[in-house]
């Protein structure tokens, strides 16, 4: 009985040694991966910061003002004025839906399209 126990424990030590060896290498590989990933994250963060800085630089008020002046003939942008505030009453109602797929032959539908034209004329 005893020799069997000895052999078994020797085998167990061997197996554990093998397991520890493998774990060691997988851990090292994982750590290498993490380092690489963190480097990548740091790099991405850095380029993100640069992009943000560039976005802010390109959108600086001075440049936007110059661009608005330069493209005035196309855009016609001017500084916002108090008179540009509107009220809800000034917003037009959406035009009545145009009925499509009309049967031209039926008099019903002709009168319907006339209504649409009349509705469009009223503001």
């Amino acid at each position, binding site marked *: 009985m005893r020799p069997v126990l000895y052999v078994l424990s020797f085998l167990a030590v061997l197996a554990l040694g093998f397991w520890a060896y493998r774990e060691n290498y997988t851990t090292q590989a994982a750590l290498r991966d*993490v380092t690489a990933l963190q480097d990548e994250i740091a790099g991405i963060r*850095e380029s993100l910061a640069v992009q943000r800085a560039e976005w*802010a630089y390109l959108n600086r008020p*001075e440049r936007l*003002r110059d661009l608005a002046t330069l493209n005035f003939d196309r855009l016609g942008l001017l500084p*916002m004025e*108090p008179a540009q*505030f509107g009220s809800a009453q000034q917003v037009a109602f959406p035009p009545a839906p145009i009925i499509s797929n009309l049967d031209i032959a039926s008099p019903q539908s002709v009168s319907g399209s006339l209504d649409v034209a009349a509705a469009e004329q009223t503001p």
Partner: protein
Amino acid sequence: MTRTPLRPLARILHARSTGENPDSIERENLRLRHEVMRDKARGRAQLRLVVLALCFFSAFTVIGARMGTMAASVPEEPRTASAGTEIEASRADILDRHGRILATNMTTHALYVQTRDLVDPARVAKELAAIFPELDEATLLRRFTDGRSFLWVRKVLSPEQMQKVHEIGDPGLLFGPREMRLYPNGTLAAHVLGGASFGAEGVDSAEVIGTAGLEKFMDQRLRDPAQAGTPLVTSLDLTVQASVEDVLASGITMMNAKGGAAILMDVKTGEILALAAGPTFDPNDRPNNPTSGEPSDSPLFNRAVQGIYELGSTFKIFAAAQAIDLGLVTPETLVDANAPMRYGKFTIKEFENHNYGPMATVADIIAKSSNVGTAHIAMMIGGERQQAFLKSLGLFDASPVELVEAKGAKPLRPTRWPEIVTITAAYGHGVSGSPLNLATAYATIANGGIKVTPTLLKRTEPMKGARVMKKETALMAVSMMRRVVTEGTASLADVPGYAVAGKTGTAEKPKRGGGYDHEKVVNTFASVFPANDPKYVLVVTLDEPVETTGPKPRRTAGWTAVPVAAEIIRRAAPLLGLRPQVEPQPLDGLTAVKQ
């Protein structure tokens, strides 16, 4: 193990035959056996002690060795920890109130030289001088060859410059990574942000420290590694700040002024939405501090905070408000305004020797900006109460705003306070303050008499300050200021829809030798809008302006600071989302009867 008997038969028999006591043999043998047993036990105990000592020794050796390696090794971040904010920038960003970037960091490189590794110092010096125009070839070569082993060439490089240096291809030229502070908006809010520069420099990194303004005041917070990932959110509004700076700059040019300042403040929270001073500078390329001449001639001078001026007639509203608060007068009370007024050896006159008297109502005194009338109101109040009131408005202390420059700019006032000072202080002469002090005091009035503390950091809750005056008094003061715009000295500030209320102030600058310089004035317009429900305070100050469109040059605030302020309100109010309103008109006789 062979066991020796205690009573060996041969010896016992032999002893018996010789008549000896056989028991002594047994005792002798027992003694010998005990001795053997004792030796064995001692040996085992000694072995155990040695083993234990070995265990302790190795344990302490391991601990000691580990401590030694930890102390001697370079600190390293735990690699298995999740990548969080710890790999963030070293200095926190500064944002405006809507999250737009005012200051951020950028990675760049510094250039240094290991002279021992230089292959051809003469060629390197020549090519470096060709890339960087500010470097001198002869100086570089001298520094490369004077025996030093290491020297910095440039603190920051652009990627193009770095590529060119790479192309020189000398092994002695090396790059160190750097985080540099970047202000993407250029000169925008330069006086608020201040600037940053490098502190202690190493090859691998350099610390970035704030040199002025908000960057220096909040340096600890911005450098704190625990908060590096959380940007500092200021109260400024980028668009409003840009418009205010734009209008102020054209105002300074049009009014031929030496400089100017504008402050726009939210009266409920004390947040400064825009703070502009001109002339300005680029914080990315901050000029050096001036070593000679007037500090105010440098673009670094922040007129809004550091400019301590006599603020003139803008102070009159404080006298009027206090007199009303104390119940001495009402806006309709008639006060002696007969000019000129004699007080001892002093004569108090009105602007251009007008006379608004003999009697005028308090509201008219403010609207027409009468010195004599204000002097009489101040005499009713008395010096002590006047001082206490001005102090409670924060006009005697340096502004608590988050700028390093503010601490050094303490308002000036006479140490003694005789009655003549009471009189002159009432119309803003003899006491000085910064435009920010004035804006804070006006914000307190506009906030219904509750003291406002100015801040450059975003605040979400309204101010919970001490009450300085009654709410009714504050309302009356604002409506008196509204009359200054509708029928008084600030008629050019009447922006339709925004019911601007305000008070003008023109003060002559003191001359070096004493007395006042009539040609050099500081014009201030302090305004509150909209008057029926005050939300914002705007103070515009122009330094030595002169308006030359008329037949003779005009130097009063009504002609210089007021139109600039009006234009700022016209531009900024819509950006603040303030809808123009039809002002409630006072009931005329007919309407009143009809109702």
